[in-house]
């Protein structure tokens, strides 16, 4: 067995073990050990905030939505059947809250569940001559974080939603589909568009010939 297969097997075993542990916790909460609910949601709370923020793009609203979703999940815990993972069920509640809030504050109609989108459309990347890898350590620079945040803010909410679930939270395509209530094919289409849009928005600013831009911003922020 090769090491990739070993890793996959280990991940599968770990995931199954986590599901079993959560199933037991839920049974104990429903049997009266309600304080355990705090521990049950703790691994997911950051993701709930980020998913809510991906849609509403407002810190206080996103925090409020995450709180409401957790309380709704507690009240509805007896309805959790285990058809999906607990984390996926909790995320679905959060996304429904966020979408509902988004619709109340935006006049333009946007159908999060539409399945009428064609495959790839006119989404094209920014074509570069070369690319020099940007290490994650550069995220210590606020300017880089801001560029990334500004780029994702320019995407439509339904694209931000899948990008956050898949590429920030690391959910699988199937889990993303279950949490958003759209089919896997549409998840892939939205993910393709979101990823290429991010590349198109960011690559020209981050490409080797443009790196001076980040350096200039850094010096400016430092008052030099």
């Amino acid at each position, binding site marked *: 067995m090769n090491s990739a297969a070993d890793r996959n097997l280990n991940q599968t075993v770990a995931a199954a073990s986590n599901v079993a542990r959560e199933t037991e916790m839920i049974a104990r909460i*429903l049997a*009266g050990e*309600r304080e355990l*609910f*705090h521990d049950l*949601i*703790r691994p997911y*709370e*950051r993701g709930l*905030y*980020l998913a809510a*923020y991906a849609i509403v793009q407002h*810190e206080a609203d996103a*925090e409020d939505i*995450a*709180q409401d979703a*957790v*309380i709704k999940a*507690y*009240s*509805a*815990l*007896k309805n959790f059947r285990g058809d999906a993972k607990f984390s996926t069920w909790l995320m679905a509640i959060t996304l429904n809250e966020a979408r509902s809030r988004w619709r109340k504050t935006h006049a333009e109609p946007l159908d999060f569940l539409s399945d009428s989108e064609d*495959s*790839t459309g006119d989404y*094209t*990347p*920014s*074509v*570069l*001559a*070369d*690319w020099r*890898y*940007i290490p*994650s350590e550069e*995220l*210590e620079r606020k300017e*880089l*974080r801001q560029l*990334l*945040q500004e780029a*994702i803010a320019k995407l439509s909410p339904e694209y931000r939603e899948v*990008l*956050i679930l898949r*590429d*920030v939270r*690391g959910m699988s*395509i199937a889990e993303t589909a279950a949490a958003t209530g759209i089919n896997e094919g549409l998840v*892939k289409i939205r*993910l*393709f568009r979101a*990823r*290429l849009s*991010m*590349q198109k928005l*960011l*690559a020209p600013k*981050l*490409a080797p010939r443009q790196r001076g831009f980040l350096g200039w911003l850094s010096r400016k922020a430092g008052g030099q």
Partner: protein
Amino acid sequence: MTLNCKHVWAQVSEYIDGSVAPEMKQAIEQHLAHCRHCSAVLDSTRNILVLIGDQRTFEVPVGFGERLHQRLQAAMDSAGSPT
């Protein structure tokens, strides 16, 4: 199977996810071997996804966790058991 650049761009997302069919994967890699532009598109997309997946990129507000559990506790105290 011979691909042009547009064909490769259409597959970039699934290629990154490792979900393209073996024949398509081979055709993409043949194209990438001699197309520096598509290689840069793939490398930049992959790099940007690594950056946005890093915990430092998107932070939660200070005190978010404490406020969440305080409000949850208050709701649990008033609602009682979820059963």
